């Protein structure tokens, strides 16, 4: 059976690498991106099972990817992670259908939100 695909987007390569190894270790097929533009192009042509996205992606807001992904696939699991517990952005994320987690991410919770492999 095909393993679930999880796209992760973070402009910090250290955070991206850690998350990549961890999620791959859980048995997911991980597709990592460091930039908004690359992730956007990928999501325009592909529908992963889940998206884990950093809110601050250079000068872009990762929540834009959440909107694009959710509009293409409303049932996709989306988790937005952020270094800041910002009430306004949390509300924006939840309105867009994403779970908002503050860094450092509690990996037990993150695993819980992903579709079971």
């Amino acid at each position, binding site marked *: 059976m095909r393993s679930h695909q999880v796209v992760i987007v973070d402009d910090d390569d250290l955070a991206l690498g850690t998350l990549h190894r961890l999620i791959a270790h859980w048995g997911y097929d991980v597709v990592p991106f460091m930039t908004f533009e690359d992730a956007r192009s990928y999501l325009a042509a592909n529908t992963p099972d889940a998206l884990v996205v950093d809110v601050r992606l250079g*000068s872009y*807001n990762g*929540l*834009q990817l959440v*909107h694009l992904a959710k509009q293409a696939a409303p049932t996709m699991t989306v988790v937005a992670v952020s270094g800041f517990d910002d009430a*306004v*952005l949390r509300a924006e994320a939840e309105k867009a259908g994403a779970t908002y987690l503050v860094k450092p991410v509690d990996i037990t919770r993150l695993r819980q939100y992903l579709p079971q492999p």
Partner: protein
Amino acid sequence: MSQSKHEPRLVGRSDAIRTIEADIECAARSDAKVLITGETGVGKEVVARLIHQRSLRASGPLVTVNCAGLPDSLLESELFGHVRGSFTGAYRDKPGLLEMAPNGTVFLDEVGEMSMRMQVVLLRFLETGEIQRIGADRSHTRVNVRLVTATNRDLPTQIASGAFREDLYFRLNVIRLTIPPLRERIDDIPLLIDYYLDTYATQHRVARPEVSNAAMDVLMAHRWPGNIRELKNVIERLVLKANGQIVRPTDLPTDVFKPPATPVDTPYPDAAAPRRSEPGSPADELAVRMLQHGESFWSVVYPVFMSRDLTRDDLRKIVQIGLESTNGNYRLLIQLFNMPDEDYKRFLSFLRKHDCHLPFQRFRVAPSRLPANAAGRSITSNKA
């Protein structure tokens, strides 16, 4: 500051336009805050209107507020309103524009010009959704509005220099839409020219001129620093002055068409002469910024006049330059100086207050007596 009136549209078939269309759809289907970026004159307000019109808030109002050229207190009063007696001249309670857009969209243009203090006020509003009128001791009401903002500034650079708050940036910039400059979508230029030739010929009830291939090549090669706004100004003046004739390169303003060094054969020899080679007076320089670069009177002239760095004579000269280009028409002058039509009264009362209102009659010339290439000549004639 204005309520929505016009039916906007995007003209063009380039990949860039297609991407913007897709972004507008995404923004319209979400209810997230949108930040529109792009150089001056690229059409940020048109995009804001399209997002509103295609969104679930379309039946609600769209209110536009330009954050440039307004002192802090006035901007805060415009947005949030004030209570009677809160400052000199506040004779009665006045609701702010945010309150006047329930279930609608508020478009904050030139948000990069906001002072630090206003940024804090806006940040607080985003957190609570509560409106506190100036002079009130508690919040007055909560509103449900969607915020769409725009800027021609590079906000990340402003954040780095400490002029813009990073937290506000990420709250406003949930969905970002970047409109490329006109020079990066050259293929759209002929379509835009056709569109505005039709529009202005109909609007001014004059014959529609044709643009020769040579003139079209020149128009496509121009860099358009003022983008679509500059192109609209150029086409409108061509329509008014061409009298339905064929437009040739020499009919174009010299900032668009730089004639060869040897004089070209033209029935109006002075049209080929370089006009803006020597450094101009302050009035000339400010007029060029508005006429060629698409900057607004309120952001270019108003602040320097109010800070007394510009004399009344300079202001009169600027008005004169404008009136010479528009054949004495103040309504067109508003457009030429890149102000929304709604600013007509505000602009005239500003001129009257400072004794800079010029009678239009002496600028009225029958169009048939104007040389077809007179467009834009006003700046030198003014220097003479």
